[in-house]
């Protein structure tokens, strides 16, 4: 397997699509703001567009031609580049995981895309955008072999060993059921993203889409009044909402978490398949989010904080462990996946004297708003007084939600912004802890505590405001005992 190989030719098409995606903004600018489409200016525009297309296609072909990979001396060697030649040699022991995903194009051709992640996370990893499944399988086997050799402390002789490897059993630990999938998609808030996308799109194109003519024909209809307009807007919003829901369902359909040796394998997607392999030792913590819609229904979303992923791939930075899970079953699933963590614990509530501070924080946010409304929009401005009970109950909910807990090696921190957030930290993964005490807090013997873990390419902070000042000492003692005995 040492002769250089190229990707499947369909990679050329993928290169073209990627290039177009990267140049979308300039292309839109040229098309929309190009102005005069007739005469000489129009011809020049066409020529420019044409040559850009030609350039993109030629580059894509050369890119495919130049991109070769091979396995040699225990390394994956990739050579690529059109203008700048790049050689990237990755030692097999350095590879942490191989992620397999299938886009629509790959699925149609029976291919897969594999992303190779090395330690360090932030480092650019290698991506083979289109190779056949058997090839991916072979690469995976080689990797597993190299890892085993490393564990045995032997010199990896990867090129010589061609023995079939015994596959480790993987255990299915979580599967997203259809009702949950539906509920998750319907309450995800993805509709906001879609709506803003549509708004941006429409505002981009209102110059070329003849809205006036379109609506001119319906002028009579519009005259029927605001009621019909409202109905129209409602139906439009409903359709967008449904589309967003379906989109989310396609994205998270067939969501499963498997545990295999010391790895978690998270797979999802109906049209576009994605598989993420996360070594257990890279898991830094667990984040449980209960948003306002899901919490009353008893459901939560669980995210995995792990040291890895790359900035180029946003999905790899925010990893869902359980997209939607009934809180009653959360502990059971968590035990199967990551037995180090316990979600089923009672939190230490805040002292009652913290409540006024929670109230105050919301009040300084809402009261100026109310004053401005009443001052400028009398008498309707008085309606803004409803914000007062809202802010009070919000503050109360935040106060009720906040708390912390220490169970064995785990620190739990819970707080609420709008959604309730619970973070589980394993003490061996906490990078640092901090307490913050303002003058007002000091008077009441309160302080805010926080802990940091690595997450993705940055960090994640867990924070509880206004706990007993002596609580930090307890956390500190627990934390230090850990690092001394380690």
């Amino acid at each position, binding site marked *: 397997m040492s002769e250089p190989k190229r990707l499947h030719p369909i990679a050329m098409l993928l290169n073209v699509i990627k290039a177009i995606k990267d140049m979308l903004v300039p292309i839109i600018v040229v098309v929309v703001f190009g102005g005069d489409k007739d005469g000489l200016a129009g011809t020049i525009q066409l020529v420019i567009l044409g040559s850009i297309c030609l350039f993109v296609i030629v580059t894509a072909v050369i890119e495919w031609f130049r991109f070769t990979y091979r396995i040699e001396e225990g390394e994956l060697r990739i050579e690529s580049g059109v203008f700048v030649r790049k050689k990237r040699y990755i030692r097999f022991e350095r590879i942490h995981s191989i992620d397999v995903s299938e886009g629509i194009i790959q699925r149609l051709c029976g291919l897969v895309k594999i992303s190779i992640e090395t*330690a360090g996370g932030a480092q650019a990893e290698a991506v083979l955008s289109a190779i056949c499944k058997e090839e991916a399988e072979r690469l995976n086997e080689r990797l597993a072999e190299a890892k085993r050799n490393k564990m045995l402390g032997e010199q990896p002789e990867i090129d010589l060993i061609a023995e079939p490897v015994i596959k480790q059993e993987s255990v299915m630990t979580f599967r997203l059921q259809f009702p949950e999938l539906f509920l998750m998609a319907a309450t995800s808030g993805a509709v906001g993203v879609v709506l803003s996308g549509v708004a941006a799109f429409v505002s981009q194109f209102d110059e070329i889409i003849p809205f006036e003519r379109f609506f001119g024909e319906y002028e009579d209809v519009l005259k029927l009044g605001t009621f019909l307009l409202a109905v129209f807007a409602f139906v439009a919003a409903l359709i967008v909402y449904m589309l967003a829901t379906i989109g989310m369902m396609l994205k998270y359909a067939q969501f499963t978490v498997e545990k295999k040796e010391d790895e978690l394998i998270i797979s999802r997607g109906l049209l576009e398949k994605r598989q993420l392999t996360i070594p257990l*030792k*890279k898991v*830094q913590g667990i984040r449980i989010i209960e948003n306002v819609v899901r919490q009353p229904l008893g459901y939560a979303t669980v995210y995995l904080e792990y*040291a890895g992923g790359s900035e180029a791939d946003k999905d790899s930075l925010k990893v869902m462990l359980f997209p939607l899970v009934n809180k009653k079953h959360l502990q059971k699933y968590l035990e199967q996946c990551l037995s180090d963590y316990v979600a089923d614990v009672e939190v230490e509530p805040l002292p009652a004297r913290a409540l006024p501070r929670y109230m105050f924080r919301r009040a300084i946010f809402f009261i100026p708003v109310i004053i401005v409304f009443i001052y400028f929009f009398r008498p309707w401005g008085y309606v803004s007084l409803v914000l007062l009970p809202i802010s009070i109950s919000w503050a109360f909910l935040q106060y009720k939600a906040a708390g912390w807990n220490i169970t064995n090696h785990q620190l739990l921190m819970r707080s609420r912004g709008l959604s309730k957030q619970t973070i589980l930290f394993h003490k*061996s993964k*906490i*990078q*640092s*802890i*901090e*307490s*913050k*005490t*303002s*003058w007002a807090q*000091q008077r009441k013997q309160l302080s805010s505590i926080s802990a*940091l*873990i*690595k*997450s993705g390419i*940055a*960090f994640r902070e867990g924070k509880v405001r206004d706990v007993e000042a002596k609580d*930090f000492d307890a956390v*500190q003692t627990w*934390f*230090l005992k*850990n*690092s*001394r005995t*380690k």
Partner: protein
Amino acid sequence: MELQNQISARTLKVWRIIGFLECLITWIITIAVLVLTIIFDWTPWIIGGMIVLSVIQPYLGIYLLPLIKWRRFRYEVRETEIEIQRGIFVIKRTLIPMIRVQHVETNQGPFLRKYDLASVEVSTAATVHTIPALDLQEADELRQYISKMASVEEEDV
């Protein structure tokens, strides 16, 4: 329990110089606004506010805030952990176990160099924690000490 070590007293001078330079910028802007107000007949409110700011800022930025900041900043480097206390209005206390330290470096900007000082920056996998100014020699020793203590145990992130 207060932490033991304070940062160098010369830090105060450096912070005051920086505070003075910031005031200088405010004064220049104030003069520019004053001139523009006279030429274009703007409302006097803006220039009034600017003048108040130019008077208050030196007191806060050169005298008071550096002093509080300097008094508040304390640190302790022990065998197994580093503890830092900092802040002006809000006191922040940070605890970093030695085994989480990934690397440590000393830095010297132009102002610090003039006063023979250096800052010590301790990086974990998540963030960087800074001790803003120590005697150059002390900073070097501290860097070497932390580096030695941190490398006792290597652990994957």
